[in-house]
């Protein structure tokens, strides 16, 4: 049996769950995301030990999902971003705490400008082997 990991047990299942609504999904920091996209990356604090015992490593995992859309014009970009966030919120599977959604702000990635905001997420992870 392969060792469990946060990637395979937490981030990838989340990425898989939202693949149907976000055109491009990433379970780590992408070098050059292609819009529209959703990228699942660590939040601060990232890993919080919060359970009894030392038998298995048990952690609260804090994540942030960065959601970005193309910045064609303000009105349509914001509308597209809101629709994408709503559809992602509906697709997040059980077992994940859904927190606040930040305001979207324009970002420059390479030569292109995008509108991006963040969804706060958290879940719990136990190292099983």
């Amino acid at each position, binding site marked *: 049996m392969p060792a469990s990991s946060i990637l395979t047990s937490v981030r990838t299942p989340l990425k898989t769950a939202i693949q149907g609504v976000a055109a491009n999904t990433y379970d780590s920091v992408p070098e050059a995301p292609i819009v529209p996209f959703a990228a699942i990356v660590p939040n601060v604090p990232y890993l919080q030990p919060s359970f*009894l*015992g030392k038998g298995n490593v048990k952690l609260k995992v804090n994540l942030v999902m960065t959601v970005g859309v193309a910045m064609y014009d303000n009105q349509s970009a914001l509308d597209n971003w809101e629709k994408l966030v709503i559809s992602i919120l509906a697709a997040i599977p059980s077992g994940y705490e859904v*927190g606040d959604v930040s305001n979207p702000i324009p970002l420059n990635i390479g030569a292109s400008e995008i509108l991006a905001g963040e969804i706060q997420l958290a879940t719990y992870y136990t190292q099983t082997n």
Partner: protein
Amino acid sequence: MATTVITGRDLAMTIATKNYDEQATSATLSADVTIETYNTLYSKAYKSIDSQWTFDVEMLADWGAADSLCEALWTAAESAPNTALAVSLTAVTGAVFAFNVLPVFPSVGGASPDAQTVSMSFTVVGTPTETFS
């Protein structure tokens, strides 16, 4: 003497022989000791007359899971409320406390969007037995 530090990571807890460390975030065994005070002609006198122990547990709710503690406690509180459950609480290797508690109904639900949690306060039957080694 060197400073000794033990933490919640040193704790281990079993209820009815099953280990629930992976769900529990806090476990505390404490005593409420009743001490009578007598005003004598000479001075005050104190007498410990009773102690009631309590076991407080906070954990993530595990309804629906295999070997669910919430479901086991609910069933026990419903079907056998006066039958004590054996508990073992290890503060750290070499300091183990064994005692019995009466089952209580776990709370159900919680606030959105956080993980559902359960806080339970068990009445301990009798006095814990300690093993120091």
